[in-house]
């Protein structure tokens, strides 16, 4: 874990309000462990916004890290105004990683909204390791998609309104592929309702599943105790000292679906 002043290589809008930024961050890369990890970004506007903003690592290679972010509020808006050549201060790499995807499973990668970046990262890792997999990407409508529906190559898009890819939520294709494949393993990141549905499904059908969750973070490094999620399995001991809660920043953001609970 280190703080690095990273050079912005590029910063471009890839879909409506969704931006991709590449950073020259050799320090982060030197400690990087795998997809699921995130960085904590500081936008220097004096102390107007005291807290850093957590962003998943969407790719990490050749000394470069990328993030994909959506404009939500002040800080992401300021971020989108940065130009290549500017610097930003990043803290990372933080958090744990997806695991087991390379242990003879069939990974079903599921991403929705701003949960897509770590899933895209995991997809690259699967490709690199030549592991067959399917990726399912959910969105409300086609505006949010910046990847093409390509079922032949196991890339499945869904939209709530049917404006691109399959109509409906990600649950239909998940269920279909689970039934088609041997030793399926779900890896998902996305909005809470999506994660809740996947978790319910995985527990009911006994499908091994890892979820990367979000939480409001004060520090990203275990100091503030702000980023808790309820544990389901209170026996499981982790870095943080809690029984009932887990600190998403250091124990997560990736959890087995059976180990956590949503409110």
């Amino acid at each position: 874990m280190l703080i690095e002043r990273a050079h912005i290589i590029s910063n471009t809008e890839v879909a409506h309000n969704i931006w991709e930024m590449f950073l020259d961050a050799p320090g982060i890369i030197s400690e990087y462990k795998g997809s699921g990890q995130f960085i904590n970004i500081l936008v220097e506007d004096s102390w107007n916004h005291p807290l850093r903003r957590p962003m998943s690592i969407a790719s990490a290679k050749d000394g470069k890290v990328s993030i994909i972010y959506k404009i939500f509020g002040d800080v992401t808006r300021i971020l989108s105004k940065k130009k290549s050549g500017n610097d930003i201060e990043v803290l990372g790499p933080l958090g744990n990683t997806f695991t087991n995807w390379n242990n003879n499973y069939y990974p079903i990668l599921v991403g929705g909204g701003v949960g897509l970046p770590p899933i895209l990262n995991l997809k690259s890792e699967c490709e690199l390791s030549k592991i067959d997999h399917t990726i399912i990407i959910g969105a409300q409508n086609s505006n949010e998609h910046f990847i093409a529906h390509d079922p032949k190559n196991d890339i499945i898009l869904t939209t709530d309104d049917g404006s691109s890819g399959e109509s409906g939520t990600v649950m239909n294709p998940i269920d279909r592929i689970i039934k088609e494949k041997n030793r399926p393993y779900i890896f998902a990141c996305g909005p809470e309702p999506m994660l809740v549905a996947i978790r319910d499904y995985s527990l009911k059908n006994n499908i091994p599943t890892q979820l990367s969750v979000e939480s409001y973070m004060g520090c990203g490094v275990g100091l503030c105790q702000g980023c808790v999620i309820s544990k389901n399995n209170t026996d499981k001991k982790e870095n943080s000292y809690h029984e009932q809660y887990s600190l998403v920043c250091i124990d997560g953001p990736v959890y087995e679906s059976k180990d956590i609970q949503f409110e």
Partner: protein
Amino acid sequence: MSNLEVSIGNITFKNPIWVASGTFGYGTEAPDLIDVNKLGAIVTKSITREPREGNPPPRIVETPSGMINSIGLANIGVKKYIKEMLPIYEDLSTKIIMNIAGTDIDEYIEILELMENQSSSITGYEINISCPNVNKGGMEFGIDCDMTAKLTEELRSRTDRLIIMKLSPNVSDIVSIGKASQDSGADAVSAINTVVGMSINANTGKSNIFTTYGGLSGPAIKPIGLAAVNKLYKDLSIPIIGMGGIVSSTDVAEYILAGSTSVQVGTANFRNPGTGEDLIDMIDTYVADSNWKSLVEMIGKVEIHN
């Protein structure tokens, strides 16, 4: 390095830059990002008798130049603190101040006694009195002079280590609470704890904090902290440990000029856990570049107009 040493009670601290309770865990969480041994002191997270899970999320939200937290005193409890933390502290060369919280006077006493029955390198205790007292209908210790005096006395009679009463800003008259602490034997007071605040998401209509109200900290409250410290300085004779919104060396200088003997860095640690270490070098430069001979000379020397 100019002389940054400060004294509180009979203890000398190598510099006045401490990290604030609840913002630096147990001092062991961010070793990659800071050399904790450089710090004047680490004030550890509030410890209660039993371990506490703390409040459900959301526990934290950003506000203009600040943040609100409602962690709910999540902590490992005094027994685990003794067993797991004290051995670690033996190997540190910075001073450790243990912050204690309780829901009635007995709880504070019991924790202190457990600690005093123990050999340890702890330098002293900071007493968090912004806690609801279950025996007084949830009224905070820190808003009542008599309760504060009683608590201070009970603790004073049981230890020779430093006792620092940590004052709440959510009171009509912080000076009277400070005086009650002083008159009952506290070695110092620290101020301020967080300011009661609320945050609402106008889009969803929801409270951004599970417990509705939480504690405001960060640069937004610096003026409130400075006023509290300066008022206390004018009326008290024991040292004051200032905090609230310190993020830069000018903030440190302002708190010292207002009357702080040492300062604590809180929220700034979340942005950069190395802030304390950075500030030590920066305040050193500040003193060297100024007309002050030492940092101690600056304490309380704000020039006022009237």
